[in-house]
């Protein structure tokens, strides 16, 4: 076998083996399983890097491991499509996974589900790798759901907590709603093109009628909406913070939730041939970005703030892919993976230090107690706010600049406002948690996390600083753009550039917005120039709306969940038991009634028997007579 093919299949094999090992023999390994699991993922990472260079210096390839489902004309194999997009994703996924694995050894120490945790984490890595490298939609869908399952099981990792298992279930079901659309999209695609292989699908798409393409694209996008937590299916992601924090870092920030963006980038042919669908992507992305940031403004749970920020940032990515700037989207995906992973890990470190405390109101002045954590957190925060030279600056600017230059001004304005809000809420978090007076009761035991946790944080922080430079020179000349763009050359350019505003002007505006947000946070929470309570009361309706997450959960509950449950109960208790089964039992009862009547004929009276007999005889004669 060719070396690169061997490498390709070894990459998923390691985590798969890990899952299997820890799942079955976990209890014999105990603490060791964490190290070995990390080692497995690290091995995958190293192989991914090798593969990256192989692909970077040669070209992509596809390979089929074995035929999987062949039924009639339907053919799908377990096969990989290795191109630049997938190797970038591979390196990102395995890289961050490795770090999170290492981090988890410290974070999960002493948990009784230690090996179970690593088992499922490995399974997740495996599924994510397969999702990234798959070369047909069926395989993609399989691992699309598989990562959802891993997310489900890891969110509900502490299953004794009702909230945790509820959150897991919610994540799974909401994802399923999106997957429903995704599945229908696949069906339609298959019916239209008679194939699910990327190459053949893409070859067929240009000749497909536009409205069909649009429907397919929208349905596929529905899957992305679910997976990548976009409006209106984002509701599971904040709840998903019930899981262990490294899981949030890996799955709900860096990798799985970005699968939707990856998917649209992967199917750029379909989306670019349907401007309408792309517009929908843009609109949903823009709205989600703003909306999530708006909610994040007033939350007090640090993980939830970061979760809303993730939703918001995913909105940026969708804005990018929605206007056809796939490289910008992927670039933001990568940089976001790094800094958001970092933010979550540091948040986890904070929790670890505060023995699980999440409420911002009970924190303060942690900077002195946990310096590494604080510094890395601030790095992450700066990256998120888009302050140069951190990675967020480059990637977010690439997105916003493209939006502006392609003429989507309204989206651009929203994006900038969102950037402002982003900077505000993340620095509100930083200022409240790490600065100000320490809260006496909570911070007594506050301590820095062990090195096994801090080292991955530091590594990520370093990357958060340097990875942005892949975007140099900014705009469509960058290293990253040039590297990746070859993969998107099939795309139909439905949104050409209409402006040629220089990048530095746009960047300046962005940086200004970011700084303004930070300054506002500074004024409010460090300088205490304004009383936050007063602002609260001024904007009371807005504040309440934001604080209660726009009541979306309640609306869903009231409008959908409750009526449906009542309806289902009605179906069971009335339709099933009363109507259908009632009819069946009613027939039986009717027969019993007939039986009682029939037995009355047989009343034991001889004269009535004689009568029956003679009536019978007369009736037979009569029958012939009237015939």
């Amino acid at each position, binding site marked *: 076998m060719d070396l690169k093919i061997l490498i390709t299949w070894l990459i998923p094999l390691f985590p798969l083996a890990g899952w299997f090992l820890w*799942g079955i023999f976990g209890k014999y390994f105990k603490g060791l399983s964490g190290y070995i699991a990390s080692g497995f993922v690290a091995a995958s990472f190293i192989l991914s890097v090798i593969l990256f260079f192989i692909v970077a210096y040669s070209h992509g390839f596809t390979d089929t491991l*074995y*035929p*999987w*489902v*062949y*039924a*009639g*004309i*339907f053919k799908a194999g377990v096969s990989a499509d290795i191109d630049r997009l997938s190797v970038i994703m591979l390196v990102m996924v395995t890289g961050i996974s490795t770090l999170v694995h290492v981090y988890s050894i410290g974070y999960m120490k002493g948990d009784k589900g230690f090996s*179970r945790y690593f088992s499922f984490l490995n399974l997740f890595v495996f599924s994510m790798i397969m999702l990234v490298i798959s070369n047909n939609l*069926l395989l993609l*869908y*399989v*691992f*699309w*759901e*598989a990562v959802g*399952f891993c997310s*489900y099981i890891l969110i*509900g990792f502490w*299953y*004794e*907590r*009702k909230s945790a*298992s*509820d959150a*897991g*279930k919610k994540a*799974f*079901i909401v994802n*399923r*709603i999106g*997957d*429903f659309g995704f*599945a*229908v999209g*696949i*069906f*339609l695609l*298959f*019916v239209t093109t008679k194939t699910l292989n990327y190459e053949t699908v893409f070859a067929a798409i240009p000749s497909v009628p536009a409205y069909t393409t649009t429907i397919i694209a929208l349905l596929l996008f529905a899957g992305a909406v679910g997976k990548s937590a976009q409006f209106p299916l984002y509701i599971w992601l904040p709840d998903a913070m019930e899981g262990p924090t490294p899981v949030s870092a890996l799955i709900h920030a860096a990798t799985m939730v970005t699968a939707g963006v990856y998917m649209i980038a992967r199917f750029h042919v379909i989306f670019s041939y349907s401007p309408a669908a792309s517009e929908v992507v843009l609109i949903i992305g823009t709205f989600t970005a703003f909306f999530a940031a708006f909610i994040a403004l007033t939350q007090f749970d640090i993980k939830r703030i970061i979760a809303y920020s993730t939703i918001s940032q995913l909105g940026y990515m969708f804005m990018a892919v929605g206007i056809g700037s796939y490289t910008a989207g992927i670039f933001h995906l990568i940089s976001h993976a790094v800094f958001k992973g970092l933010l979550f890990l540091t948040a986890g470190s904070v929790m670890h230090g505060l023995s699980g405390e999440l409420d911002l109101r009970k924190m303060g002045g942690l900077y002195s107690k946990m310096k590494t954590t604080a510094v890395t957190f601030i790095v992450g925060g700066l990256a998120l706010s888009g302050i140069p030279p951190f990675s967020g600056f480059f990637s977010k600017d690439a997105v916003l600049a493209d939006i502006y230059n392609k003429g989507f001004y309204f989206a651009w304005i929203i994006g900038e406002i969102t950037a402002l809000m982003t900077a505000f809420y993340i620095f509100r978090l930083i200022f409240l948690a790490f600065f100000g007076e320490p809260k006496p009761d909570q911070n007594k035991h506050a301590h820095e996390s062990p090195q096994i946790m801090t080292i991955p944080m530091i590594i990520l922080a370093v990357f958060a600083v340097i990875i942005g430079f892949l975007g140099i020179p900014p705009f469509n000349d960058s290293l990253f753009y040039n590297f990746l763009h070859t993969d998107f050359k099939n795309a139909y350019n439905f949104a050409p550039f209409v402006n040629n505003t220089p990048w530095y002007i746009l960047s300046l505006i962005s940086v200004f917005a970011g700084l303004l947000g930070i300054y506002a946070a500074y004024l409010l929470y460090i300088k205490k120039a304004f009383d936050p309570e007063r602002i609260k009361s001024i904007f009371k309706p807005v504040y309440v709306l934001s604080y209660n997450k726009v009541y979306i959960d309640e609306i869903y509950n009231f409008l959908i969940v409750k009526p449906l*449950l009542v*309806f*289902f*109960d009605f*179906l*069971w208790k009335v339709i*099933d038991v009363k109507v*259908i*089964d009632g009819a*069946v039992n009613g027939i039986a009862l009717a027969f019993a009634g007939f039986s009682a009547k029939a037995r009355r004929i047989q009343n034991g009276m001889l004269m009535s028997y004689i009568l029956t007999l003679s009536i019978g005889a007369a009736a037979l004669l009569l029958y012939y007579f009237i015939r």
Partner: protein
Amino acid sequence: MDFFIKYLLSILIFFPVVSIFLLLPVNKKNEGILRNFSTFLSLVEFIFSLYLFIYFKQNTYKFQFVEKFNWIPSFGASYFLGIDGVSLFLILLTTLLTFISLLSSYRYIKEHVKEFVILMLLLETFMIGTFAALDVLLFYLFWEFMLIPMYFIIGMWGTGKRIYSAVKFVLYTLSGSLIMLFGLIYIFIMHYDQTGDFTFNILRLYNTHISNGFQLILFIALFLGFAIKIPLFPFHTWLPDAHTEAPTAGSVILAGVLLKFGVYGFFRFAIPLLPSAAFALSPFVIILGVIGILYGAFVSIVQKDLKRLVAFSSVSHMGFIMLGLFAMSAISVDGSILQLLNHGITTGALFLFVGMLYERMHTRQIKDFGGIAKKAPILTTFFMISVLASVGLPGLNGFIGEFLILIGSFHSYPVLTIIATSGIIFAAVYLLWMFQRVMFQDITNPAAESFEDMNLREIITILPLVALMFLIGFYPMPFLERIDPTVLHFLSMINHHHKAVYNAIKLKAGLSNA
């Protein structure tokens, strides 16, 4: 060995009967021997059945392991056995599930053990016979008598309203199958009138030309028999009762094998015999199937009894299978057949787990459980795998079947398929919710504190099923490549017949016009 392979089907059919005779001399009191010996014999049967798989020739739709002897020449009935890719797997499923359910009932069945094992083995004979029979009368013989052992199993070892359920089960299915018998007799007579060939050989009956109007009537007759067995939506009410009250082994067999007979009947009899009617009525059947999918799922969501929930989920799953079968594209029919196996495996496993929970807690109410995961990690793991397979999680068996069904049906019935697809959401809702309430959260019931994990016997019981879930999920080709030629032949056959009838009628109409 040659003899063994040549008469393998007969050996499979009659080996359980022989086993019964081996078991008869055993004293009633010797429950241990009875249990072990019967389980061993069913294992031997299963191993025998594996020979079918080994010696099965793949790339052909032709019937294999054919045996044909005169039986009742006066009716044109013969002892005619043979299997194709579809019945092959259903027979394997039968032998496997019989073994598993015998193994699973060591703890559940406490009294009348001898009667129980004898009835189970008897049931096995009839189930295999039904799948192997290629003669309509022989088929019907096996099909109908099957009710009786099942009836005893539900009625004698069941719980709660067992007698009501057992009687309902028998009467419901009996009425359907008697109407079906009418249809079969009618076709038989019609074939005789046309060709003068007095035969119940299904392969020859396929050539009967029946006008469209008659086809519709006959199809409805056959439909009733098969649809009740499946059970399709408005005919399903026997199922929750029977499943709920039956002992674990009974539920496993009922869900795992008996429900398959309806679909098998459609596949082998109703559709090929009456292709035009099947084409004409397929939208209605599919609508019923789709209603069943949603209805079963909806009602499952609000169930309070574990077994009843699983039972209603069967209604939902069988709806998918009907959708696939009647969409009549190669992909969807392949999927349906595969899904038959999957449903047998997963639902069988689910019932086993419900049985294990019941054995330990003596309740089936969902609210009485909670936090079991803490006490029984192995059980939780396997249970979860089964639940996920039932949900249709990719990588497990349920997904492949459902996906093939849906993708195959989409072409002809896009709207209905979309509605059906939404069933996968609700499957996740009711199963995961159930799983959460039973296994997760904190322990509320003090009885759960002493919950034991699975023992070795139970693990052995479950392991083959879980292994199959993964095998079909990851590598379904050994199954699909055997099913596919049969299905393709099935489709070409009904298309051919359909066209022939259509042309004949057109010809007639043309002549009458002229």
